[in-house]
């Protein structure tokens, strides 16, 4: 009896190591290649290290199996740290972080370009959805609960 319990426990222990489905996050470089090869809709998740609600999105939304399924099937998903200091080659142009070393919250050109607003500051988490031709369809500047996210993603 005792050994059975141990076996079952060990079984559960190994079960937890079965790789779970994950969102296949791309970089902007990978996205460009992917878009030329096979156009798909794109979702961009902008986050920062200090943004608690962004972490909540990563923990509670982008881990849900049904969301992962839709994302991996119908979308290219890109996750981008708004304070990144990297130079990004995209669409034949180089995007850099012009604010790095100058401002406290130094936003990269990419989020300024995709999620920047005229008269309001960029608020995080920012989620940008683009169509197959990389045209902006929707932008959200708040936490999106899993159910709502699924509805948004399933909209044609």
């Amino acid at each position, binding site marked *: 009896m005792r050994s059975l319990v141990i076996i079952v426990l060990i079984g559960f222990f190994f079960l937890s190591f079965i790789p779970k489905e994950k969102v296949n996050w791309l970089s902007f470089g990978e996205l460009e290649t992917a878009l*030329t090869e096979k156009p798909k809709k794109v979702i961009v998740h902008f986050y920062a290290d200090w943004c*608690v*609600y962004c*972490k*909540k999105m990563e*923990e*509670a*939304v982008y881990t*849900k199996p049904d969301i992962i399924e839709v994302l991996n099937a119908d979308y290219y998903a890109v996750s981008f740290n708004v304070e990144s200091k990297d130079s990004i080659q995209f*669409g*034949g*142009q180089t995007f850099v972080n012009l604010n790095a*070393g*100058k*401002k*406290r919250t130094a936003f990269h*050109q990419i989020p*300024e*370009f995709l999620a*920047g*607003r*005229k008269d309001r500051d960029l*608020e995080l988490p920012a989620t940008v959805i683009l169509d197959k*031709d*990389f*045209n*902006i*369809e*929707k*932008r*959200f*500047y*708040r*936490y999106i*609960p*899993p*159910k709502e996210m699924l509805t948004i993603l399933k909209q044609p």
Partner: protein
Amino acid sequence: MRLVLVCFLFAVNLVVAQEQNVKGFVNFGEETVPYASLKFMNASKVYTAYSDKEGQFALQIPYGEYELQVNALGYQPKDRIITISSTNASNLLILLVEDLLGLEEVVVSATRNRVNKKEAPIIVNTLGEKLITATQALAVSESLNFSPGVRVENNCQNCGFTQVRLNGLDGSYSQILVNSRAVFSALNSVYGLEQIPTQIIDRVEIVRSGGSALFGSNAIAGTVNIITKDPVLNTWEVGSYLGLIDGDTPDRVLNFNASLVSDDLRSGATFYGFHRNRDEWDANDDGFTEIVELKNTTFGTKLYYKPTDRSRVTMDATVLNEYRRGGDRLDLPPHLTDITEELTHNTIMGGVSYDFNNAKNTNYYSIYSSVQYTDRDSYYGGLGGGRTAQDSLTALNAYGITTDLAVASGFQFTKQFKRDVLTSGVEYNISSTDDNIIGYNRRVDQDVNALGVYAQYEWKPSKAFSALIGSRVDHINVDGIYTVGDISRDVDISQTTLNPRLTLSYQLTEDIKFRGGYARGFRAPQAFNEDLHISSVGGEPQFVILSNDLEAEFSNAFTGSFNYTKTFGRTQTNFLVEGFYTSLEDPFTLVSTGVQLPNGSIVEEVRNGEGATVYGANFEFGVSPSKKWLFQLGGTLQRTAYDEAQILFEADGSNPNESDILISEFTRNPNVYGYLNTNWTPNDTYSVSITGTYTGQMIVPRVISDSGFLSLNESDAFFDLNLNAQAHFDVSKDFKLTLNAGVKNMFNSFQDDFEVGPTRDSDYVYGPALPRTFFLGIKIGKMH
């Protein structure tokens, strides 16, 4: 919301298969459009380009016919067929028409609209987690010193009771709030600040001077608002702390907290626990404690549920059990020792609030109620050095029981106009205290009912100017019976007062803001805070009792300040100078009337003292050149003066060497005090902080004879400097480790003339709360 894109293209057909330099502009009228994306497509290839900051773009592309897609924020993307040729290659002009209605699908952020500190009409000083970590504060009381105008003092070496002074006015002139609710009762304020563990605190907001009508009528010096954490992520944390007071006396803490929040953020809960066990410490080896033994266990939870997008129910509950004991021979029953102050608190606190707002986010409503109940066993007494039958009897008589109930309920309505804000509300507070020491025939049986109605209008006629105009009407009813031995006093008073409050602020330049305010306050006669505490002098308990005919006290407070805030690139600077002037009419003052009771106990009376003024300036200077460095320096220069000399000790004439003691300024109140706070965070792993407080010289009364006769001593100045080094490791995404080590009061700047023996004056304590103390701390968990 359709956007119109018009492309004017100067095209001539000419096909060259070679790649050519093509340049152009994306324009809206005369203005250029930066960061527009352009895609030129033909059957074989896609060419992409972006307009730069000046709206200019360039690319290498063969002449020919293309499908062009242009995207720019605020403009609807649209396709056009264009032809690039040698005639237009260097001057391709793409003209866009702007959408005046704004963007489609831009959703308003769910994050709450916090008022920018810089723009707030009242100066709010915030003490955050960073400072609490830097000072390794275990209780709120230890971190409050790091704000201008605030000083926490230790008032008793037998029980370690502390109080907060704001702008030099003692604890009864300020209001302590937990999540903006007045749950601290008269009894709570004696030890309560030491009982709230810092791990549940998000920040502490300190407002000096009562320039807002939302605060209670007594909050003339200001408010200390303790804001607890609101959970977002699923987290857990376990921490431990070991301090060695004076290098050998252990102070141990174990705490945990965990949060669970639903994925849709509609419900969540935080649970926390805290246990502290501190040994007693004796500074001068006389066998009597200077720092008391302390055992505290606290459990609590805070949870919320959002039935709809626009409403929220919040509940919290905390159970607190604290044991503290000071004096001598702590291993013996209290009545067999010379001095013991032993207190066991069992406190339960809880609250519910329901907040909701209308669809347009213009009307906010809040209904709340919180309750606090404390059951306390006390022992304030001892043999006092004697060994007679009478001493034994007195010692046995010192056991007491206290019950204390405080209820705060209210309703608040906030209306947001285009720029102005109206806040109004009703608050009802009940405080019922019954403190009974049967053996001494000492009893405080007091019921206070207070109803406050307030309204405040924040008027912003222009961007630069704003005014907070408000008033509150308070109706207070105090019904109390106060007995000590054969002295009995009672208060039965109902009083209604109108307390206007006004604050003006004006943005002089972009970086400099002026603020000025006036507040009127009042306090009804009642036992508060230290009036419920019994100290020990000359081996006998010293009681406090309200005098006959005690009347309400009124005060008028004026403040004016200049605040300079500027950010140069990455460097943030902040400079604040604030002047304050407070006049007190008939302030409640403790006067020692000497030995009055048959057993030789000293009685202090709360009387209406001479009128007094408190005036001075607070300053704060902060620079942060980058996220890696932070320097803050703040302090207070002030004077206190009684209009006429105030009596502190009333001689009965029996001893020719003892006469009345009169004083012209407040005691236990330095004219200069301040703090510094520096932090260096070179990277994500390490961080070093140096923090310190300066306490200037002050006059401290000391009882020097059995009759209660005082001498007025001038204390030394103290500079208490702390060092904390921290290392943080991300073991994995979900498991993190933080280690701390350092020393508090590294130069051991500490009082050196404590009284000795069983007849000591236990209130003769001043200066920093701890001698040199080494500490180690560890925190593990899934933190963020």
